């Protein structure tokens, strides 16, 4: 009984504090920032440092960083918090989830906030690399602010190159040279391969991204960046890309069969069991600190043109965050993405800084002078395109990844795989297409 009475008392007291709290003008507005750590544990500490500095500089706001796991888990936890009626004020969200979230009405347009700051959308987005706009600006409205980004990159073991009689200053620029180099680099003992010429990850999530890079390098597009109901799986550019990858496995025998996860690829590279690999720029810091041999990086080799997709995450404000909390979230977002902070985060984590002005700052210039590989990664942003994002992105991506994995395991031919992937993807996107592009006047 006493405990109940005490609870009631406590509740009343709590309610009273809530009711009175606006009266205390001094009390800071409390907001939460959900953030994922997709690569390693160091990032969590860096994020705490960053938010602490923000709180010191903005006494009217008290931001709390909440670690929410991987990109996917961050999406789950954000949706769970929204369902419980307590959306976080800001979330660092994988850039290719924004379209889905917008379609489901789960994130807000930021246009009015940009307007209040006296800027147009174009002027605001103008500070970020052009390649990043596609995943942040949807139907001409800004839904996200790019926070950290990446692209696929070719990593090369320079020692292996010299050993195989190749010049480590002339890295493969096209598929012909890539396949030729890979053949020279692959080592066999009888039937057993002790060193693979080239490796690329093909697990869920990563595989689709690498295949998109090969497709773009082959002149393709993968998806319609303007409309979330179209993918171009069954097309010549994609057939070429998939066949090339499959040939590296089955015909040239310079790439292991089956699925390799991202971690397995970087481990093999670091252990000297793979001479070249296609991997994210996000792994640069990891490779830089762990490689016991000289390595080089280069653009993803092309067949038709140099072009790759972006990866990474943007800051978003969930639906239901209003008034003072929304304003506070916006203050946090603009502060975190300013040139100085953007550059600091990039140097700490290895991600690319989305804010172009970050690269004009002296600290950043000195950093790139010291780490030229980071400079090459940034240059590739000039030829980068948006990351694939459609209605039900993950499922539509899985439709092609299942087929990619079957092809790399020798279970299917590229053409039949692409036909199946296209059919499945169209089926998944059908409800969206029927309610948008195919919703026509009936009489």
């Amino acid at each position: 009984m006493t405990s109940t009475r005490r609870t009631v008392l406590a509740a009343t007291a709590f309610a009273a504090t809530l009711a009175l709290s606006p009266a205390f003008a001094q009390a800071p507005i409390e907001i939460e920032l959900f953030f994922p750590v997709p690569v390693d544990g160091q990032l969590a500490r860096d994020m705490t440092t960053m938010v602490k500095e923000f709180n010191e500089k903005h006494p009217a706001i008290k931001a709390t960083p909440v670690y929410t796991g991987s990109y996917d888990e961050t999406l789950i936890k954000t949706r769970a918090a929204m369902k419980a009626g307590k959306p976080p004020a800001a979330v660092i969200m994988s850039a290719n989830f924004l379209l889905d979230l917008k379609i489901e009405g789960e994130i807000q347009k930021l246009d009015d906030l940009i307007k209040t700051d006296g800027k147009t959308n174009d002027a605001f987005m103008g500070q970020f690399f052009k390649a990043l706009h596609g995943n942040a600006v949807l139907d001409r409205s800004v839904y996200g602010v790019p926070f950290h980004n990446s692209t696929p990159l070719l990593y090369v073991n320079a020692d292996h190159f010299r050993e195989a009689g190749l010049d480590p200053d002339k890295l493969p620029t096209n598929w012909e040279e890539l396949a030729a180099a890979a053949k020279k680099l692959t080592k066999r003992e009888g039937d057993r391969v002790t060193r693979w010429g080239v490796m690329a990850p093909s697990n869920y999530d990563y595989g689709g991204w690498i295949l998109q890079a090969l497709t773009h390098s082959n002149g393709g597009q993968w998806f319609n960046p303007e409309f979330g109901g179209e993918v171009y799986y069954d097309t010549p550019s994609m057939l070429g890309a998939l066949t090339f990858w499959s040939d590296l496995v089955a015909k040239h025998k310079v790439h292991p069969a089956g699925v390799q996860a991202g971690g397995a690829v970087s481990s093999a590279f670091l252990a000297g069991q793979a001479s070249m690999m296609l991997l994210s720029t996000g792994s640069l810091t990891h490779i830089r600190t762990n490689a016991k041999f000289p390595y080089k990086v280069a653009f993803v080799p092309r067949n038709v043109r140099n072009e790759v997709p972006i990866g990474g995450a943007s800051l978003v404000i969930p639906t239901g965050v209003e008034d003072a909390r929304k304003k506070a979230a916006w203050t946090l977002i603009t502060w975190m993405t300013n040139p100085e902070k953007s550059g600091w985060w990039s140097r700490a984590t290895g991600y690319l800084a989305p804010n172009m002005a970050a690269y004009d700052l002296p600290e950043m210039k000195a950093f790139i002078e010291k780490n030229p590989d980071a400079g090459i990664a940034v240059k590739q942003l000039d030829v980068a395109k948006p990351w694939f994002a459609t209605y039900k992105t993950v499922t539509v991506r899985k439709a092609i990844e299942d087929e990619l994995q079957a092809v790399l395991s020798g279970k299917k031919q590229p053409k039949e795989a692409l036909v199946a992937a296209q059919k499945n993807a169209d089926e998944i996107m059908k409800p969206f297409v029927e309610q948008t592009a195919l919703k026509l006047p009936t009489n």
Partner: protein
Amino acid sequence: MAEAVLTGISETRTRPAGWRPRRTTLVALTLLAPSLVFLTLFTYWPVIQVVWQSLFNQQRVGGPQVYVGAANFFKLFADNAFRKALSNNLIYAFGTVVPSLVLALGFAMALARSSRINALFRALFFLPVLIPLVAAASIFLFIFLPGVGLLDYHLAKLALSGPNWLGDPDIALYAIMGLTIWKNAGYYMLFFLAGLQAVPADAYEAAILDGAGPWQRLRYVTLPYLKPTIGFVMVIGLLNVVTQVDHVFVLTKGGPSDSTNLLLFYVYQQAVESYDAGKAAAGTLVMLALLLAISASSLRTLERSFGERDT
């Protein structure tokens, strides 16, 4: 859950014709209240919510949930990935429960006699049980790593190259089954050790006097006495098969090409990746039905085998 059902039945039986509950019932209810409250809040209420969700879904993209009848179930059974997950789960169930049982029985019989060495071996075989499945999966991630992993490292010393353990659609499911057997055999061994204590020594004596060989003793003495234990371990094993997918999550995410997808992971994918709550709820109910069927039938077998022993 079965327990709660049983208590429910016995309550209605003891209730007198007048609707005023007896004192004892009141006392029983009061004693049960704490756990009933929690069961209702965290078990039965969610179950009701899942049943409700399985009949509702979005009709319009981004729209509200509306009643769709059995449409979620039709969609579920029409989905190739679901059927694949179902058949994977059957292979996985058969391929993990049977070998784990055989291994566990073997271990238990070899280590039944108490001695210091046997105690050490019992502890060794039981060790995998103490490691959480997620942690075990993370360890196996390294063991299975192609080229650099522990397995391939030792194979390379024999000048052999292992397959792509987790990346080959023909092998990945068996690799995961291997991990499951390693993890569970020690646990089941514990039950068999207890079961073997219950086999009377004179039964063996009589068998030996009758000239029964070791196989005959196993077939006609040990196994009949162990029937209830086997039944019980089977239930536990089958429940594990349906309710544990941590290793799939860590090692393969159901890939390559859905070859290691199991029912529970499929449900997770529908809920989280496809954002299709209706289909996920329908999948959950199918799983729940399977679980209930397994528990009910095995409990009945259990009761029967107990009964046999009494007569």
